[in-house]
């Protein structure tokens, strides 16, 4: 298409990459956290629960700032990770991390709701058939939580596509590295007359997220139909 410049295409591609990584990378941890919150009781559970919701409560700028302090090269975690070769600062990985963290509460909530809705009597049945807790989780709880996992993933993806405040604060806006669509859109909106350029990017971003949404709806419907029996 001719109506997006190469820089803009770069932003689109980068946003996709960041959102995908934020979603897929966050999913395992999201599932684990959701399961723990839904099914286990342990000291500090409410603390974990609160922590998970934090990015939702805090203004994104604050989250970004906190990320900078912890995951920056001088931050306690960022420093340690850098020693083993993982850098977030000013990298697209950092953008993915920021997006992932902002999306995390949404993902966890959705998955947790689905896990809680899984009939524990089915898990019991699996246990009597010889499945250990891990296997019960993998063969019963997980597949039956699919609606929530899909919903969580699509929410996270959408959120990651739109995330801006934390990202720009944490990893700033470096063309080709951390300049995601929302950053680009923001930049356009800051200057008088930039609206139409912003609009084009918004359209692309909406189109991508809607496709993801439709895809997830389709998958969910298929899964539901299978469970309903054929």
């Amino acid at each position: 298409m001719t109506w997006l410049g190469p820089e803009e295409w770069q932003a689109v591609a980068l946003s996709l990459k960041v959102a995908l990584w934020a979603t897929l990378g966050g999913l395992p941890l999201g599932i684990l956290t959701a399961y723990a919150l839904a099914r286990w009781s342990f000291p500090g559970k409410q603390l974990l629960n609160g922590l998970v919701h934090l990015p939702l409560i805090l203004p994104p700028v604050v989250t970004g700032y906190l990320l900078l302090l912890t995951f920056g090269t001088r931050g306690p975690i960022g420093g340690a990770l850098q020693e083993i070769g993982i850098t977030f600062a000013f990298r697209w990985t950092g953008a993915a991390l920021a997006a992932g963290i902002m999306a995390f509460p949404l993902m966890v909530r959705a998955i947790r709701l689905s896990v809680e809705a899984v009939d524990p009597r089915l898990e019991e049945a699996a246990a009597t058939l010889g499945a250990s807790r891990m296997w019960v989780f993998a063969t019963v709880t997980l597949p039956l939580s699919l609606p929530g996992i899909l919903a969580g993933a699509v929410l996270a993806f959408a959120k990651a596509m739109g995330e801006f405040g934390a990202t720009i604060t944490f990893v700033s806006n470096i063309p080709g590295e951390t300049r995601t669509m929302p950053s680009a859109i923001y930049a356009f909106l800051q200057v008088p007359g930039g609206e139409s350029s912003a609009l084009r990017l918004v359209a692309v971003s909406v189109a991508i997220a809607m496709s993801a949404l439709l895809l997830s709806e389709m998958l969910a419907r298929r899964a539901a139909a299978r469970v309903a029996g054929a």
Partner: protein
Amino acid sequence: FAAASTKTALDEISALYAGSTGNRAVVSFAGSSALARQIESGAPADVFISADTGWMDRLEDQGLVDPATRRDLLGNSLVLIGTGGDPVAITPDLDLPALLGNGRLAMALVDAVPAGIYGKAALQGLGLWQGVAPHVAQTDNVRAALALVASGEAPLGITYVTDAVAEPRVTVLGRFPAESHPRIVYPAAAVTGGAALDFLDFLRSPRARAAFAAQEFVVLGDE
């Protein structure tokens, strides 16, 4: 309606204003672009203090502010900041990439946010932009750029002097020559149909000037 960077001074001034006139000034701080759009959408604003001239020009073109009341209220200057290190002279010979090493130069969005626009212009004026452009990390506002430097994430940054002096963890390494970039001005004007002309006047009172100056703003005036 005032650009967010003027908050500390304006908070003080509006308190003074309330004390001396008995009228309360309610100040809404946000980015200039957001404020300008809100005024376009009919926001109940009386006075607009913008961080750059572009948005003010646009409002003026649309007849939303009263050109007669427009004046350049404040000025500011750009500085190169870092965490410690020796002061440098900012001349066309400055080897910024060398100073940065692997690090990044933190600036506000160079195409969007006034501080970034000014900064880019200054670097271009000095012929340094080409060399440093790939190393620039842009943020959505000056404060975020400042935070990058303060947290040590970026070794150097370009901000307003007003921001730099208030952050104890950063030091001003050098001032950009005033002629290297367009004049940094904060225009103020009364919104068409607005009332508080006296507030606009009050902004130029000595007490207000003192408050601005305390924040290192250059108070532009009728001089």
